[in-house]
């Protein structure tokens, strides 16, 4: 995973609430067994509609997507995170996110930032203006120049800043896991007897 530190550039607006992962990548594109190439399927049905803002030329190549509350609710498909990243987004800024979706993003180095409704409104209304997200300082500099702070899980932040791979980190705790397993199987029933 590539380290994430500073993301700066055009803000693309998607002024909708509760955008579910079925909209981000419809199910007919989940049949592929690869991890790459999902960008062309992003918001597939909405991209067929001429008035869909993300189609407009001023938003091409924008690294930041700003949207309403509960973005990425619904299905756990990580293809949604892969598609957003493959399309070119490096950060998604929203009022709130679906839990599984936000986790999926963090595993791929796609930054999710939660901001207060007034900051979201400013970003949506000022698009295609530019903004800067500083993960180290935990701030978003809005187009007006106002810098607003954001919260992020300390461990997620550290992994993103360093581009660390989760599995390698956990493997360093293999002894701890083995001790737990030995203890658990002494006191509990074996899980799968069939």
């Amino acid at each position: 995973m590539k380290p994430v530190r500073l993301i700066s550039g055009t803000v693309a607006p998607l002024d909708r609430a509760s955008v579910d992962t079925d909209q981000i990548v419809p199910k007919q594109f989940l049949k592929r067994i690869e991890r790459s190439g999902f960008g062309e399927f992003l918001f597939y049905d909405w991209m067929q509609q001429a008035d869909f803002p993300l189609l407009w030329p001023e938003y091409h190549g924008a690294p930041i997507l700003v949207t309403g509350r509960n973005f990425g609710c619904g299905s756990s498909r990580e293809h949604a995170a892969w598609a957003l990243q493959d399309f070119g987004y490096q950060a998604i800024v929203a009022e709130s996110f679906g839990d599984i979706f936000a986790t999926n993003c963090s595993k791929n180095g796609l930054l999710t930032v939660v901001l207060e409704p007034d900051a979201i409104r400013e970003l949506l209304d000022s698009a295609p203006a530019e903004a800067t997200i500083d993960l180290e300082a935990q701030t978003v500099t809005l187009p007006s120049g106002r810098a607003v702070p954001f919260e992020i899980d300390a461990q997620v932040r550290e992994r993103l800043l360093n581009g660390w791979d989760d599995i390698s980190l956990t493997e360093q705790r293999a002894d701890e896991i083995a001790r737990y397993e030995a203890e658990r199987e002494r006191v509990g029933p074996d899980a799968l007897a069939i």
Partner: protein
Amino acid sequence: MAAAPKTLVEKVWDDHVIGDDLLFVDLHLVHEVTSPQAFEGLRTAGRKVRRPDRTIATADHNVATGPGEPDELSQAQLAALERNCADFGVRVYPLGHRRNGIVHVIGPELGLTQPGMTIVCGDSHTSTHGAFGALAFGIGTSEVEHVLATQTLPQRRPHTMRIDYAGELGPGCTAKDMILGTIAQIGTDGASGHVVEYTGAAVRRLSMEGRLTVANMSIEAGARAGMIAPDDTTFAHLEGRPGAPQDFDAAVERWRRYATDEGATYDRTVTIELDGIVPQVSWGTNPSQVAPITGVVPEPADETDERALRYMDLRPGTPLSDIAVDRVFLGSCTNSRIEDLRAAAAIVEGRRVASSVRAMVVPGSFQVRADAEREGLDRIFTAAGFEWRGAGCSMCLGMNPDILEPGERCASTSNRNFEGRQGRGGRTHLMSPAMAAAAAVTGRLTDVRELVGG
């Protein structure tokens, strides 16, 4: 000194946490859609599956439930699952195996899902297994790879939320109406960031099938997981199943401690009043856009509602029972168990599917299908004009040939009415199995109580 009182979720968490931020996974369920990239990741890194004995795979999302073969890409994905499971020593129930079925149906059916467990799967409806008092939640493919490699997941101690039901379900109302009514009240992010525990006398009175329906839709309120403390109903359901512990009495003794202690507190509590609830149907494009069948299509409250009404081609003020349907889908991990099929068959028996409607029953597993056939339910359905299908996720997500055509309207027992979920341009109304059966015979959304004289 007595230990501090704990909630159910805290007990399961404490039993499984390694250090303070790594959760041990008892049972990892795998299916064909969200696993290929995870197995490929293992291969690339030269890793093994740490605990194949705690991993079980089935094919469900992509399988064809009717005549004909799945398309080439689907077949490649199904073949990849079998190849990956063979390469990594994981047990798999492919299509054609008697234990094949929807991952969230076969877990409980085989007795793999047990109280106090941690269960994960690359599918958001993994919350289903919480009906047994397990901490069960959906994960993405990177996490699937992580669990395959380490049998653990980095996690934060969850926030807890209690949804407490007051009152009783009235005639014609089921677990589905309970949970749809709940999501209508708290919204699709009403439980975000929390693990829910469902409590109240009405929950205790639910069968395991009903509890599975409630827990299944926890994710539709944004919850990470939804749990119901195990009781005698749970234990009776588990006894004798292939995966149940051999010393069952000893296991029951262990399981009884998975209940919230007197005096334990939750981060949040919501009370839902059940008295007066009537059968519920969704009218919009998310599972909180729900109304009583006796009501009308509501006035839009915001732009999200306006978009939904446009997509659904509905006008505010239209009585819900005037809305005609083209299709009926009885199935999905929410409502495809034997009790669901019985409830629908009871409405269908002696009646005919309306001539304007195409209706299908897709049992949740081949075991459910066999059980239903033993009871003669298949004959009731087929005599009425339903299609009787093989098992799978089918039209709940339409990754397979079972999809709606653009503009078609469907009465569905599934869990999501998102735009295009059941097929591009398709329009989904969520409801209980009995309500879907009623819609099939009248050809419109119908208050099932009119058909049972309740």
